[in-house]
């Protein structure tokens, strides 16, 4: 137990844990101490000097060691000669702090005046204007007019790109160092720093490309002035013109709470458009951070290429049609197909969409399937992390095993949270076939061959391991001992180098390890899938299962296929040949874009983006969270659950298609884990620390960033399925063949349909590439950064060769969704392209 101490702040009694800083102690009783450089998530530095307070401590008699009392019997308080910074002074018993005296107010005025001497005061054209702490603190404490001669003002560059995503206005910067410290301390991407000194002190980037961090956008939130702005939002709108809507990021399974800021504007032809994505506080999910994919990847929802009308194939051409005609045709063909109906949905859909899909399909005894390359969602429902789990609490006593996942790329906020848990003392075990960024924080690193994922984790269960690669700190046996002995243990499994079969084996091995070491059924224990889509867990919970090898006959015998929010042909053009689909098979595609699959469809139905409707996603931790409609829907589009309900209606069965809340009620009634949940419950919030403001309507002057306060729901963590887990049969899985093996890996920024429309990210996405070990490259005659051609699954592709010593020999890494279809490990042939003679 931490010792509690009592002190008086401006006459208010406060009792807080020993070691608490004044600035936070004061905030706990509602007293705002103004800050610029202090941030509650970072170590204090005491640079800006804004938080000066008058600190008195009880006088102690040196001879007796007892407090000296005054005539009234109260301890005499001795105040320091100088004011102290509230952000660097920890509380102690009996302290008296004065933050409201004239002396303190004068000191704050002095500091604001100093800051303003070199500030451009361009608030009328500044993006931060309206939600700017410098503005607020100037109003609260600053002098009404300046004594500084305007001619003496230092003028500096106003549009300095730190990278293509983040711009620096050097005049506005007050050198608080929050951005630098965020990159150093919080995310450990130390790519920006201070350069020069005095009034020439400036923020510079050390990386190429500039500001090379997937967390860079967060620095613009915590910047207390308008010095750092995003390329996306700068000059875009004034904060007070923005409406805000709570949502959930749909880019990965973390389920970051976000807020969409929208504005109806002339610049967009009078349309209401999304101006920016901001983090929304949820301390158990994403704290007050989001990654740059979540922040900048939303542009696809506003793409001009979106489908806006149903299409029906007539005379071989997809032709616009009415909803009535399209739905009628679909319904009749689905009815005719009966048990020959195969529905393929993906984790991009909400729980309501997926629930209705399954209802419709099973109504005609068809088969519903989940489009994914990962397995194990049934296992996470049984041995997943129990309610109460919080990565933010994990530290000493907790073991975290990250298996086959490059978390920095697959789920950046989990990378951040697990890195921090490791820094707090958690035992981090990273098992992967190649080094990943997370290894820097690991106490145990297990390196296996691609293909040996499940085998390696299984070895941990029986406490025997293959020998480790020289130079790595521990053997599998050490790691498994640490894992087994930890009080709490969590496993996150990803899909680095894995296809569906490999994932099945790996997830089973992980589940078995947790059961064998009794790390199940409790908070901060269990299995988490690092899924590739936001709601894959929800899809499993709604009863959809992947098309594993044994289910291929279902695909081959399908008379009608209903593909929703998935692009199997785009991902694998050879699919038709592989599965020998009948040309007569009736193909319906429901999506946002005319995908490769949609081009082959008989009917295409235009759906709404998640920004235009409401729904609920279930995160990888199995937290059900609501998102709300942020922008008006495209005319003549419908949300997926409603389209499905209308098809069902035309087929003669009744499905709920009015509002998602009603569908969710049905989910709560049918899906055991969701019992008792409702939209109202999902909208409940709780008290969170540190306190953040909410945009323009920020309360108080204590500033932890422009992240939004959580007012519309922190979500509900699902209970585990009570069914005891039967020992999972681990199918043996071995890679076949010889020669170079291509394995799929995930990149945060890819060419997927929900990323690529953000032109802003194109520089980060880059060209399609294949990564090789330099030794393999030499053998193949491939030089670094040259074009190569490769043969994969019978098809030919071009790519740029990246040479990387961290790639295991004999392996070629191929990024998913970058233009080369790859579902799992398979043989590849790589040939050097023609040399360009310069």
């Amino acid at each position, binding site marked *: 137990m931490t010792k509690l101490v009592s002190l008086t702040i401006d006459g208010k009694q406060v009792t807080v844990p020993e070691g608490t800083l004044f600035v936070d102690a004061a905030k706990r009783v509602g007293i705002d101490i103004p800050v610029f450089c202090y941030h509650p998530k970072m170590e*204090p*530095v*005491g*640079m*800006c*000097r*804004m938080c*000066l307070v008058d600190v008195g401590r009880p006088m102690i008699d040196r001879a007796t060691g007892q407090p000296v009392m005054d005539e009234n019997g109260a301890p005499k308080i001795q105040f320091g*000669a*100088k*004011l102290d910074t509230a952000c*660097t002074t920890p509380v102690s018993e009996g302290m008296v702090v004065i933050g409201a005296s004239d002396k303190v107010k004068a*000191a704050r005025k*002095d*500091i604001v*005046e*100093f*800051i303003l*001497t*070199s500030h451009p005061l361009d608030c009328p054209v500044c993006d931060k204007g309206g939600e700017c702490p410098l503005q607020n603190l100037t109003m609260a404490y600053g002098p009404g007019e300046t*004594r*500084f*001669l305007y001619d*003496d003002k*230092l003028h500096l560059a106003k549009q300095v790109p730190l990278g293509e995503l983040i711009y620096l206005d050097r005049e506005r910067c*007050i*050198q608080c160092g929050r951005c630098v410290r965020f990159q150093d301390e919080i995310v450990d991407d130390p790519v920006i*720093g*201070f*350069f*020069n*000194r*005095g*009034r*020439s*002190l400036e923020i510079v980037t050390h990386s190429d490309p500039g500001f090379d961090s997937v967390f860079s956008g967060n620095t613009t939130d915590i910047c207390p002035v308008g010095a750092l702005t995003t390329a996306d939002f700068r000059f875009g709108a004034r904060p007070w013109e923005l409406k805000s809507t709570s949502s959930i990021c749909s880019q990965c399974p973390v389920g970051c709470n976000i807020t969409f800021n929208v504005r109806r504007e002339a610049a967009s032809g009078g349309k209401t458009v999304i101006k920016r994505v901001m983090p929304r506080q949820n301390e158990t999910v994403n704290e007050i951070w989001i990654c740059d994919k979540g922040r900048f990847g939303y542009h696809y929802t506003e793409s001009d290429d979106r489908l806006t009308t149903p299409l029906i194939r007539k005379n071989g051409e997809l032709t616009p049609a009415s909803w009535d005609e399209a739905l009628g045709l679909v319904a009749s063909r689905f009815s005719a197909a009966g048990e020959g109906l195969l529905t393929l949905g993906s984790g991009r859909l909400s729980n309501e969409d997926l629930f209705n899909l399954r209802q419709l399909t099973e109504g005609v005894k068809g088969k519903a399937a989940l489009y994914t390359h990962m397995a194990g969602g049934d296992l996470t429902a049984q041995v997943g992390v129990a309610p109460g789990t919080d990565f933010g609490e994990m530290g000493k006593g907790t073991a975290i095993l990250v298996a086959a996942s490059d978390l920095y790329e697959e789920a950046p906020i989990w990378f951040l949270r697990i890195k921090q848990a490791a820094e707090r003392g958690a035992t981090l075990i990273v098992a992967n076939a190649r080094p990943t960024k997370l290894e820097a924080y690991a106490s145990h690193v297990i390196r296996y061959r691609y293909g040996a994922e499940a085998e390696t984790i299984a070895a941990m269960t029986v406490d025997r391991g293959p020998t480790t690669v020289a130079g790595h700190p521990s053997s599998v046996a050490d790691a498994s001992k640490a894992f087994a002995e930890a009080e709490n243990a969590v496993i996150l499994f990803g899909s680095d180098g894995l296809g569906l079969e490999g994932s099945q084996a790996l997830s089973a091995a992980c589940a078995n390890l947790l059961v064998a070491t009794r790390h199940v059924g409790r908070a901060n224990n269990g299995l988490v899938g690092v899924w590739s889509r936001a709601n894959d867990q929800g899809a499993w919970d709604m009863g959809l299962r992947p098309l594993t090898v044994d289910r291929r006959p279902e695909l081959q015998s399908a008379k009608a296929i209903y593909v929703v929010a998935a692009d199997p042909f785009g991902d694998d053009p050879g699919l038709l040949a592989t599965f020998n689909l009948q040309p007569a098979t009736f193909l319906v595609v429901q999506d946002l874009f005319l995908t490769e699959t949609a081009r082959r469809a008989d009917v295409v139905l235009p759906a709404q983006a998640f920004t235009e409707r409401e729904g609920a996603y279930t995160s990888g931790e199995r937290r059900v969270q609501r998102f709300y409609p942020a922008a008006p829907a495209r005319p003549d589009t419908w949300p997926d659950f409603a389209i499905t309900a209308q098809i069902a209606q035309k087929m003669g069965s009744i499905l709920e298609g009015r509002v998602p809340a009603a569908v969710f009620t049905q989910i709560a009634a049918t899906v055991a884990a969701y019992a008792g949940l409702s939209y109202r419950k999902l909208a409940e919030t709780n008290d969170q620390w540190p306190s953040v403001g909410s945009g323009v309507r920020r309360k108080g002057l204590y500033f932890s960033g422009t992240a939004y306060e959580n007012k519309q729901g922190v979500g509900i963590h699902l209970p585990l399925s009570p069914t005891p887990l039967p020992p999972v049969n681990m199918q043996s899985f071995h890679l076949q063949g010889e020669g170079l093996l291509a394995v799929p890996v995930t990149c945060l920024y890819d060419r997927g349909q929900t990323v690529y429309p953000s032109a802003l990210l194109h520089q980060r996405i880059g060209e399609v590439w294949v990564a090789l070990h330099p030794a393999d490259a030499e053998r193949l005659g491939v030089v670094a950064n040259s074009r190569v051609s490769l043969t994969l699954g019978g098809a030919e592709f071009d790519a740029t060769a990246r040479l990387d010593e961290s790639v295991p020999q004999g392996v070629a890494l191929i990024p998913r969704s970058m233009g080369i279809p790859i579902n799992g490990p398979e043989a590849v042939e790589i040939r050097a392209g023609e040399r360009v003679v310069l």
Partner: protein
Amino acid sequence: MTEHLLLRHRDIPNIDQLDIYQQHGGFDAFRKAVTTMQPDAVIDLVKASGLRGRGGAGFPTGMKWAFTDKKNWPHYVVCNADESEPGTFKDREIMERNPFQFLEGVMITAYAVQANLAYVYLRGEFWQIASQLDRQIAELEAAGILGDKLFGADYSLRLRTHLGAGAYICGEETAMLESIEGKLGQPRLRPPFPPSFGLFGKPTVVNNVETLTNVPLIVARGAEWYRSFGTDKSPGVKVFSLSGCINRPGNYELPLGATFRELIVGRGLGVPFGHKIKAIMPAGASSSLIVATDEALNTPMDYESVPKVGAQLGSASVIVIDDSVDIRWLLDKTLHFFKHESCGKCTPCREGTYWMSHLAERIASDHAAQAEVDLLYSVASQIKGKCLCALGEFSIEAVLSGIERFKEDFVS
């Protein structure tokens, strides 16, 4: 005084040669400490000598060493040879001319706190001294005076020199530590102080060159002997750097407690060209201006007496200002220096020195109204007590004292 204790090269030619230094008892003290004394006994001896830090703050040296956290290892010793205070040039002479006594002081200190690695941090402009010290360190290693298992005892020590890149702020001890760590030279928050959290986060003793140069003699000749120099509370000798309007500028080694008059008139032979002494800056640019009255000139130069005439002894770089100097010009030069050297970490110093420098420039060029003088005074006052480190706090000393004590110079 009969002999120099610190500037011994003035008495003994070629003491910068190792054999000459050894002929005069060089490294006997270090050998004695390592082979016959417990580390704590060395600390106690230095405590008993009353030696105080010569870098400016005058903190008792032995007490600082005793604060070194013994639960946290390794320990480091860093010698502050940044010597950047305008008007200070004593460490340079010591290192150039009497280097082995200085290095022996570093080595004894390292032994006292059981550090196996000590750094000498020199300002970038001292690169010749650094390469000279490197050669001398190599000589010591070759002679078996530095290295592993010294004198058969279980103690090893290595010395390293480290050059700064030319920043005044790196004379501030925590900024210096940051600089050695390869970071931007900006001061850290204190507390924690270096003896508990110093170089690379480990307990570190930071002392000035002159301070450490005293140590070999204290170990060799005893605390009582040392206390026979100087005053009761400021024992020992001090090298005073005398500059400015003076006939014989230079370093003068005097016991602490010698008066300004003894230094300025007795040694420096007064101001040239028949001018009168107007003001004294006893601690370089970081100093308040003392009005050069008879009382001031008769004031003993020690840590207790100088504050009585409204200044600090500091690094004892005595800058003499005669009546040909306009205090407005002096403030302009001083503030230009502080503006140039402010690290920019904390607001009052970064913005305040910039603002003051601009005001002082206009005042000095006679283009300012009285209101600007008042504004300069006001800006300086509002910096006071709000800075992160002493640089900012010192930047206003000359301003406040100059405007208060030399009003006539500011009447235009």
